[in-house]
């Protein structure tokens, strides 16, 4: 498994190199990689002998975090892996012809290959974090593929929408998986789903709910369905591959994977099945009346995904079997139809269904492939589509679900006719491009996949034994006898099938009345969630603009004010409430020297504040500095005093020199502004003063200074403790300080030397 993953990942990353060498022929050669993987997987499936065996591989990655790259292969993941590599091979091959002569083809094929590897990673992963990583990678590659034509705004918007919806869902998924892993005490899915004590955990339902959000966004369930039809901006091969047969089924896969655990939660039957049914219905109704090939197909994909979700929500063995068959059938026919839609678009330049007709004579092979897929989608015997529908009806849970299924089936017949039959029959219509048969690389996919829909159904017992039974058993988490038979005799399901067909034919013939009947539903579904999404996105943008405008006013003092206010409100509040304020006891009596010094400082501060003259202000500042130096002298800090003296002298000289170049003071602030600033400054003065006073009493934690005093001579051989701290104990800090000085000096130098006036043009 790891070999296959590596093969595809490396192949993906090396695609540009191959393109440089082989040009447009690269894709057809690269398609051999997934084809080879497919064969390898078939071999692995054979060796598991169809008995629900599990291949487990673990590679230690970060042992400290108990993090292993563990992968598992069972019937379910094998089915998905076969679809991913099998359809993938055709899609890559197809892309080569689709992008023939287009230089962006290289990028497309590269992302496609990387997507393939990510998707395989999702279905192989056994470790929940590994699963999540690959899950997000599929969202990410999907974003790149939808936005492939990045010059078109619609494509960019659709790509962003898909990324936001599925990415947000991914975060929910991560949260849910982590809760599950915590509760279950293991990060391995294989041990989590067999953990019988997990459902009793108090957070079990919450975890399942979070995971459901992730699965629903990925698989486009109502109300997250809107991103999928918009994703049709992607080139057709991507739509065929990601948005019908593989990526969107990741959500279904996850539900199926967690099925044995999930059925223990009430959410399963009460949320998953109804949401699935609702999606099945909504998608089908919305497909009706669409006139663009791909959008039409996209809505039925939404609908089909809903059907699978609903079946998994039922939680019975019959439903699991139906889900697996339906999934297989849908992947085959939907990929074919999308590829056909791509061919029609590519060869005729038309996307609008009503402008197409009679293409049968122009492109016979494509028409055949489309016909095969359409027959399967309609659910005519003997196809997988027929089987899937029969099983869907057989697994029913009451009249509501059943009638929704029949209704959806009716629309499926209609859509299959419109997309797989209608463009090819009837009178030939003139299209933008003359239209001719596509190269074999393009019709081989629809042909093969459409053919398989019939072959696999004809040999139902083989399909049942090797594909459906292992997958269904993996979904159920226990060995169950599952057989697949094409013909069940004249029973209720067959009658329902016939009814569906009849309704479908009626829908084809009576387009107008039927669409009028369902138009309120589709209108509500169109304006609903998509509008919420857009409103939400707009709201976030406008909110951030407004917030930025408030926070980034551009006034320096506004920033200072906000910092100061924040400190006052948080630290100040804490200080007022918690710290006991000492009385006015004096630790050190005031002698005459102190008094003179402090008075001097008061006068100097007043001078600096009130002076109208620049020189007087600088002189006052100098007095403050020297006064503080004297305090250092009196209270046992000779080093500080010396440094302060030197620095203060330098500062004064520098200020005098610089102010020579600056204009005189001007009174600029208004009176209210001065009063406001004065109030704030007073509050700060009171706060810092009180803090200083309180801090000079008592100790919150024992001091660590004794260490420096005791070891200064004994270990560092220095007699001046302060100096020893600076150059020995904390030498690295001093180095940092010197660095700051150097950087500041270099910066100042650069600013002084800079000649802005000499530059022309350039930035603003």
């Amino acid at each position, binding site marked *: 498994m790891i070999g296959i993953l590596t093969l595809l990942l490396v192949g993906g990353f090396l695609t540009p190199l191959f393109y440089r060498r082989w040009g447009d022929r690269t894709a057809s050669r690269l398609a051999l990689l997934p084809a080879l993987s497919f064969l390898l997987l078939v071999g692995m499936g054979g060796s598991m002998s169809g008995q629900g065996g599990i291949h487990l591989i673990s590679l230690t990655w970060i042992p400290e975090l108990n993090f292993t790259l563990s992968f598992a292969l069972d019937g379910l993941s094998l089915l998905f892996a076969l679809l991913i590599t099998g359809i993938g091979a055709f899609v890559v091959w197809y892309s080569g012809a689709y992008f023939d002569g287009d230089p962006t083809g290289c990028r497309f094929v590269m992302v496609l290959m990387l997507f393939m590897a990510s998707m395989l990673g999702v279905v192989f992963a056994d470790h929940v974090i590994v699963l999540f990583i690959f899950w997000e990678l599929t969202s990410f590659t999907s974003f790149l593929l939808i936005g492939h034509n990045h010059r078109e705004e619609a494509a960019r918007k659709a790509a962003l929408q898909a990324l936001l919806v599925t990415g947000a869902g991914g975060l929910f998924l991560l949260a849910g998986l982590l809760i599950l892993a915590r509760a279950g005490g293991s990060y391995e899915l294989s041990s989590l789903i067999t953990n019988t004590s997990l459902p009793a955990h108090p957070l079990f339902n919450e975890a399942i709910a979070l995971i459901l959000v992730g699965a629903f966004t990925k698989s486009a369930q109502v109300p997250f369905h809107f991103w999928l039809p918009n994703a049709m901006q992607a080139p057709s091969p991507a739509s065929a591959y990601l948005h019908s047969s593989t990526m969107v089924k990741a959500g279904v896969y996850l539900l199926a994977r967690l099925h044995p655990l999930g059925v223990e939660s009430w959410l399963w039957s009460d949320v998953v099945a109804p949401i699935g049914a609702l999606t099945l219905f909504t998608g089908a109704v919305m497909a009706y009346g669409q006139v663009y090939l791909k959008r039409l197909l996209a809505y039925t994909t939404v609908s089909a995904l809903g059907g699978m979700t609903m079946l998994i929500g039922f939680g019975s063995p019959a439903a699991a079997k139906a889900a697996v068959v339906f999934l297989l059938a849908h992947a085959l026919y939907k990929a074919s139809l999308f590829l056909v839609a791509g061919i029609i678009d590519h060869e005729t330049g038309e996307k609008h269904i009503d402008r197409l007709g009679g293409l049968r004579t122009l492109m016979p092979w494509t028409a055949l492939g489309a016909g095969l897929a359409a027959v399967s989608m309609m659910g005519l015997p003997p196809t997988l589509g027929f089987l899937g529908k029969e099983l869907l009806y057989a697994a029913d849970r009451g009249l509501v679900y059943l009638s929704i299924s029949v209704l959806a089936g009716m629309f499926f017949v209609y859509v299959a006719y419109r997309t797989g039959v209608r463009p090819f029959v009837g009178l030939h219509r003139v299209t933008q491009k003359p239209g001719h048969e596509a190269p074999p690389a393009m019709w081989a996919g629809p042909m093969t996949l459409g053919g398989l829909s019939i072959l696999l159904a004809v040999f139902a017992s083989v399909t049942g034994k090797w594909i459906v039974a292992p997958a269904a058993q993996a979904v159920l988490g226990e060995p169950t006898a599952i057989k697949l038979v094409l013909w069940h005799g004249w029973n209720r399901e067959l009658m329902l099938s016939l009814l569906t067909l009849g309704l479908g034919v009626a829908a084809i013939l009576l387009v107008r009345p039927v669409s009028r009947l369902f138009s309120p539903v589709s209108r509500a579904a169109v304006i609903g969630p998509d509008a919420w999404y857009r409103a939400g996105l707009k709201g976030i943008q406008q909110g951030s603009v407004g917030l930025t405008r408030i926070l980034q006013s551009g006034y320096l003092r506004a920033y200072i004010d906000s910092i100061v206010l924040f400190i006052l409100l948080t630290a100040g509040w804490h200080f007022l409430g918690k710290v006991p304020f000492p009385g006015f006891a004096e630790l050190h009596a005031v002698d005459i020297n102190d008094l003179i010094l402090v008075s001097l400082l008061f006068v100097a501060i007043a001078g600096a504040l009130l002076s109208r003259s620049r020189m007087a202000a600088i002189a006052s500042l100098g007095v403050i500095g020297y006064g503080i130096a004297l305090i250092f002298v009196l*209270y046992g800090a000779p080093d500080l005093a010396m440094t302060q003296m030197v620095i203060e002298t330098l500062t004064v000289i520098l200020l005098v020199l610089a102010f020579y170049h600056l204009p005189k003071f001007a009174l600029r602030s208004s009176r209210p502004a001065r009063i406001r600033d004065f109030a704030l400054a007073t509050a700060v003065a009171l706060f810092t003063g009180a803090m200083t006073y309180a801090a000079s009493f008592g100790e919150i934690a024992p001091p660590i200074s004794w260490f420096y005093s005791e070891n200064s001579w*004994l270990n560092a051989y220095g007699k001046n403790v302060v100096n020893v701290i600076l150059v020995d104990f904390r030498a690295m800090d001093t180095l940092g300080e010197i660095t700051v000085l150097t950087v500041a000096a270099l910066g100042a130098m650069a600013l002084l030397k800079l000649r802005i006036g000499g530059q022309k043009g350039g930035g603003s």
Partner: protein
Amino acid sequence: MELLMAIVVGLLYGGGLFLMQRRNLVKFIIGLAMLSHGANLLIFTAGGLTRGAPPLIGEGETLPPALHADPLPQALILTAIVISFAVLAFALVLFLRAYQTTGTDDLDDLRSTDT
């Protein structure tokens, strides 16, 4: 003495802040310098005042006298003095340059990156 020191610290902080809120570049610089002084003095006072006993080890001794000023805040302040000088000098040159380029020393006129 602690009370007086606390008042001085409060005045330095309040005065420095008030000056920094003025629209004048020069006043801003002076306010910044006052704020630095206030911070230094705050650390010094909070570390405990010890009169006339510097943390020095006498000739022939291995330990400083039993009662001596706390060396740790002094080391911190020493670093702070030098750093605040660097900041001040850099801010000064920056403002000087801004004034030469934009022709104004009014901070309210320096709101956007376009000159």
